[in-house]
């Protein structure tokens, strides 16, 4: 046998890597360096590493705002250069580097906004985690669905369903755990509708998803206006899960309080994200699911039931997204508001893509978005000089830049969005 295993066709040809990412990074880095560094404010920023009641209390770190801008701007320039060198060597900038870049850029912006003020770093990090949880869980639901080949535009609707049911059921029964369970089941049922229409009746998945989103938004708005707004004490006052510090871990400086003084919804997310990764990439169940999403006919010919696999993954994905919705209400603010998800389901879709359909990367991406949302909330309080609308768009701008600029060429599951019609 003379044939040796050689790389595939055309492999020897020159594959060039797009320089989009390094150029975009360079533009941002220079902007940070100039705007926040060279012409930045000279007022002192107090970095508040820990809260007063933390076990290990670090002193505040005082530094001039423009010094932070200069240091971080220089670091960002260095990362941009590294990315450029990688692209020259025909290598793609790794995702972790992009994420670090994003985090540092956000910190530089924070330091600029907080000039002459205190920067409650611990507070921001903690809230970023809380805000990232619904995004991350929504993204996990999306990954579960898309990995088996069903495009899930309805994450938004599932988050909203979860948020609504958790608040209302939790409030009416005075049992938050029951609220959580009903929220998850409700969102899963919504997912079932998507699954049945997409898998059984082969209806266009995007259209079903959009219809479901509009439907849920309409119903919850109606119920909110007709019922919750007048009967709020009774039906929309569930409170939140208690904050449970994990002994030992929560004493770690800076990240301890942020990560390990959290509610059960956050801890469930910590559990679900690595579990999903493990199932997808290490088990038989995950191998079969990915096979269905890549090449359903091939999966069918080895005896895997494509329709059933897709149905269950999409449905259970809804369960996870419903938990994310509950995290919005009983896992954070303790009441339901009109259009509470406010587009976070769509940001979760961006998180899925930015995370390249990978649970761990998606979780990291969700944290970046959580950061940008908390920034919006906090910046509104400290810098009244900046127009509120401008700061409000920050998360969406981050979404846009992340998807357009940094994602690069990614490969979705090959059969994503394609119905499977059995011969």
């Amino acid at each position, binding site marked *: 046998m003379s044939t040796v295993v050689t790389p595939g066709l*055309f492999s020897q040809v020159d594959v060039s890597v797009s320089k989009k990412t390094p150029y975009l990074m360079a533009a941002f880095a220079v902007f940070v360096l100039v705007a926040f560094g060279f012409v930045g404010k000279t007022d002192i920023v107090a970095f508040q590493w820990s809260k007063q009641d933390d076990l290990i209390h670090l002193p505040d770190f005082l530094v001039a705002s423009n010094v932070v801008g200069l240091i971080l701007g220089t670091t960002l320039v260095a990362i941009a250069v590294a990315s450029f060198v990688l692209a020259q060597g025909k290598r793609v900038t790794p995702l972790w580097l992009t994420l670090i870049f994003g985090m540092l850029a956000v910190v530089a912006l924070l330091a600029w906004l907080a000039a002459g003020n205190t920067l409650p770093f611990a507070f921001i990090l903690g809230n970023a985690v809380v805000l990232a949880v619904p995004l991350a869980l929504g993204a996990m639901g999306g990954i579960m669905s898309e990995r088996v080949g069903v495009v899930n535009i309805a994450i938004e609707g599932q988050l909203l369903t979860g948020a609504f049911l958790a608040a209302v059921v939790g409030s009416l029964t005075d049992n938050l755990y029951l609220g959580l369970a009903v929220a998850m089941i409700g969102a899963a049922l919504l997912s079932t509708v998507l699954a049945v229409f997409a898998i059984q009746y082969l209806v266009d998945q995007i259209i079903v998803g959009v219809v479901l989103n509009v439907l849920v938004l309409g119903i919850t708005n109606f119920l909110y206006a007709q019922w919750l707004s007048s009967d709020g004490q009774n039906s929309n006052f569930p409170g939140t899960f208690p904050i449970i510090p994990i002994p030992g871990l929560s004493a770690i400086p800076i990240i301890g309080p942020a990560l390990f003084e959290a509610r059960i919804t956050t801890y469930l997310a910590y559990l679900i994200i690595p579990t999903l990764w493990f199932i997808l990439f290490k088990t*038989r169940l995950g191998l079969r699911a*990915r096979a269905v999403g890549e090449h359903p006919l091939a999966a069918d010919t080895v005896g895997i039931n494509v329709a059933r696999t897709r149905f269950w993954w999409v449905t259970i994905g809804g369960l996870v997204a419903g938990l994310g919705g509950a995290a919005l209400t009983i896992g954070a603010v303790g009441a339901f508001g009109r259009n509470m998800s406010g587009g976070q389901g769509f940001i979760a879709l961006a998180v899925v893509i930015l995370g390249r359909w990978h649970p761990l990367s998606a979780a990291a991406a969700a944290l970046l978005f959580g950061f940008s949302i908390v920034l919006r909330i906090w910046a509104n309080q400290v810098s009244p000089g900046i127009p509120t609308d401008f700061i409000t768009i920050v998360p969406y701008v981050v979404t846009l830049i992340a998807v357009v600029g940094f994602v690069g*060429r990614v490969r979705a599951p090959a059969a994503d969005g394609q119905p499977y019609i059995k011969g």
Partner: protein
Amino acid sequence: MKLELRGITKRFGSLVANDHINLVVNSGEIHALLGENGAGKSTLMNVLYGLYTADEGDILLDGVVQKFKGPGDAMAAGIGMVHQHFMLIPVFTVAENVVLGHEPTGILDTLDIDTARKRVREISDRFGFEIDPDALVEDLPVGSQQRVEIIKALARDAKVLVLDEPTAVLTPQETDELMGIMKGLAKAGTSIVFITHKLREVQAVADRITVIRLGAVVGEAKPTDSAATLATMMVGRAVDLSVSKKEPKRGETGLSVAGLTVIGDRNNKVVDDVSFEVHAGEVLAIAGVQGNGQTELAEALVGLRTPSAGSIHLGKMDITHSSVRDVIDAGVGYIPEDRSKDGLVGDFTIAENFMINRSYGPPFAKGLNIDFGNRERIASQLIGDYDVRTPSQVTLAKNLSGGNQQKVVVARELSRDLNLLIASQPTRGVDVGSIEFIHERIIATRDAGKPVVIVSTELDEVTSLADRIAVMYRGRIVGIVDAKTSRETLGRMMAGATV
């Protein structure tokens, strides 16, 4: 294991794809199922594999009647299948593909990839496949991917192995290797059903031959029977597949391509610095194994893909960056390789399909209106001239047989005043009668003094039509040789060897 099919009948609506088919394959035998495209071979095998359910008839293994509800049942009973289009997941490793559906597992449902690897290595070593279990399938050449399919079947203890048109994607050398593998498997006791329409291969490897035509068994034949006998059984009449043609009268340069490079969908050079010339009155055939850039080259020539470098000249005219319409108006006829996807609109009538590349002007349009009278006249003339077998010119294209669909495309492209004809896989999936007809027309175009480019993966077609042959491998032209070059040399070139 002995396989027996008794009276298998499968209907799709009014079409009878399989009509009471009987077939017996003995243990350790290579049994060829010979038939034309559309004779019902693949349908029969999909019934055997549980993908379709037969309307009538029984499948017996070692004398026991089987009921297959799906491929899982067929596999469990010991039937393995190597599909014409590989059922492999490109982003999975070889080992993952091989064990998919019957994975060895450890605790917590974890994939036991070591056992999977060992299983692949074991089978690969036993039959000399030389396959790395950890290679990603998408990185493997087609011939190796096919071996992965065979390993996949053997890993499930397949006693009956069905190979559906396995040589379509292979070079002649790879085909020889595959035949060696088949013989080795048969010696080890595996029963093999070998589905093909290639007489040469049947004669080389089969122990017994069953010929089917129009969904029914015509009879049995022996591998020692002459090719002419087998062809007559397969087609139903005497056929002469050799194309008679005169020496070419070469004229001026009709098409010159210089340094053409096309970047493909995955950012690779699918056409890599390709240069050639075609003279008026000659046929240049682009040969090569499927997927070596021929499709993209043809598409670039007609303006469907934008080249990143190089030039295309039609006579003196530069058409490198011309739009498709300008290319059509310049007199380039194009028969695309996939007629149902790129050649026709299935839901349009035949008459409408005749006019779709000239919808905007005479003879089909008058001002903003369709010239219905003219269209009807032209359509009935083309249907007559090109022997399109159809009830009427308002029949929908999708309701025609493959051969007649192809004749519609050929009629549309050849009925214009051409300066160049590009025909990609002009006879793929077409019955023998239509193949003869289409070949005659292509030669007639050449003899009328037009330059002709044929893209074909069928070596027989290439050698019978071409005056010169350019062989493509991985996007490059390995060499341009005379049409009388031996099959062996062409085969080596198709595997990348330069002359």
